[in-house]
């Protein structure tokens, strides 16, 4: 089992979510996050003074899925979340030791 964490542009959430569902992902958790990468945000002006928007708002999508789905899910994210400009975000893939469905107590892929 693997876990995918995708940090994407907030306005692309709907597209990424739909693409993940199409490749067979059955559940996900999303959260609003802020952060920065190599560009360290960007500068804006307000009433003539400059200020840095260093922590840029993003959406984080967390998906737990069987290992064989990872390639397709990654494809889906890359296809929908990419604009080609700075700030498109990142995808992290990690191994999952276990998953438990709280209602039934099932473990492992059964619980996905």
């Amino acid at each position: 089992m693997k876990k995918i964490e995708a940090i994407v542009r907030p306005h692309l959430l709907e597209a990424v979510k739909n693409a993940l569902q199409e490749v067979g992902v059955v559940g996900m958790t999303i959260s609003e996050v802020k952060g920065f990468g190599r560009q360290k945000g960007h500068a804006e002006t307000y009433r003539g003074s400059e200020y840095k928007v260093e922590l840029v708002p993003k959406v984080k999508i967390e998906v737990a899925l069987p290992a064989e789905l990872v390639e397709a899910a990654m494809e889906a994210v890359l296809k929908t979340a990419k604009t080609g400009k700075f700030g498109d975000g990142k995808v992290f893939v990690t191994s999952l030791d276990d998953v438990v469905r709280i209602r039934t107590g099932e473990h492992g892929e059964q619980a996905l």
Partner: protein
Amino acid sequence: MMTTRRRLFVSFGIGAVLMLGVSGLRHVAHAQTAPEAAAPAAAAPAAPVPDPTGDNTGTASDVAVKDAKSPTLPEVMATVGHNKVAINIVWTLFTGFLVMFMQAGFALVETGFCRAKNAAHTMAMNFMVYGIGMMGYWICGFALQMGGVGAVAALGGTPPLTHEFTVTLLGHPFGLFGTKGFFLGPDVYDVGVFALFLFQMVFMDTTATIPTGAMAERWKWSSFVIYGFFISMFTYPIFGNWVWGGGWLSQLGANFGLGHGHVDFAGSSVVHMVGGVAALAGAMVLGPRIGKYTKDGKPVAIPGHHIPMALLGTFILAFGWFGFNPGSTLAGGDMRIAVVAVNTMLASAAGAVTAMIYMMARFGKPDPSMMANGMLAGLVAITAPCAFVTAPASVLIGVIAGVLVCWSVFFVEGTLKVDDPVGAISVHGVNGAWGVLSLGLFADGVYGDGWNGVPGKVTGLFYGAPKQFLAECIGVVVCFAWTFVTIYVFFKVLDVLVGNRVSAETEMAGLDLPEVGALAYPEFVLSPGTIGSYEPPPAPAPAPAGAPAVARVSAT
């Protein structure tokens, strides 16, 4: 089980509604048939005829006379005079109600331009300045300002306001303050005086609420409360007396031949410049918000938390200004109100458009906060000259105000290093001065016959009366000196007695809970921005090649 029970309730509910509806219809039917049935019985007096066009409403029979067949001229004259003053009193009260609503506009503008952590505190100051200011004005403010104004003919003569404390200098009387009308006591128990009180009270409260914006996000509540009494009982009424209450600035014309003396139709100097200069003095004593300037003195932007709120507030202010300026005739029978109202809206539009264009040209985007400041700057500037200038002059006054407010915001923040979160100093102080000066330049000499006891109409420099401009200049200098000195000294003394500024901890946490005991937005977890910290964030070290570039920070 649950669903059947719910269904039962629903059908019972629908049945009940239907039954009520039917019985209601039957009631209506009864009501319609009843008069017809009763009519033949009471045939003697003619049934009242409705008048849908209004052509027959308000006739000779509405004029009270002893003998309806031969009304006398004095009887008719009395009714005409009564109606004339009635129209003026209704007008003065109604426009005063509009100006009262400007308090809501100020509250929204100032709160929108502040950070969310101070929203309840900023809103609460704008709310309470209404009550505090009114109490102070009722105690002595009104008496000091208007107690010697003499006869306000439009309001029926305001007979009791007759005592002005006057000194003689250079062989001329200098009115300093009024001495009648304390607590609106029995000696001024008069409808004209009460109408005047309401109108002048809401103007004073406009002044009182201006510094709450410039001093927001760091002002101690107890200091604010004492300030509310001070400005409404002392600083504002005295200057108001000098211009509107028969005091010495209004006498400059009669005494020294300077046009009509210092003329300010609706308060560019009396209301706005006093407020703006008080804001400057207060913000200077308080010092900038933590994080407003970097170590080398560069200003850091601290964006407001709710731009739609600020823009809504600006619109409410623009609406209230239709009371502020046209109402200042104190006479609905003075049809110059049409010119005043149109000039007011033209200048507001010109100010907003010019500020927008200026910001777009200089920074690429039309900064909504500066659009709002631009519209208010146009309104403040046209407040003094609105009754005396042409429409093209009004647009020009607004255009200049729109640029002036942008320059002034940058100057106050970048050069003076005075932190004014909402631009109150620039909008009200600088453009208040520009407003009275523009009157001295553009007054076209068609209105204001006998203003301040000087025969002839109010005429400015560009129409051949340079002395009028001189009187306006004197008014600006005196307004600045009087307001700045009294308010600056007041805050310096208060700094020693109770302190003006909250602790650094309170300021960082937000003033809402520590100062007023309520959060504006308790259901939201506010994410701390990078702005407003003690130190600017240290420059990030360059990431070593191959190191993970994304440092994720979860929203808290």
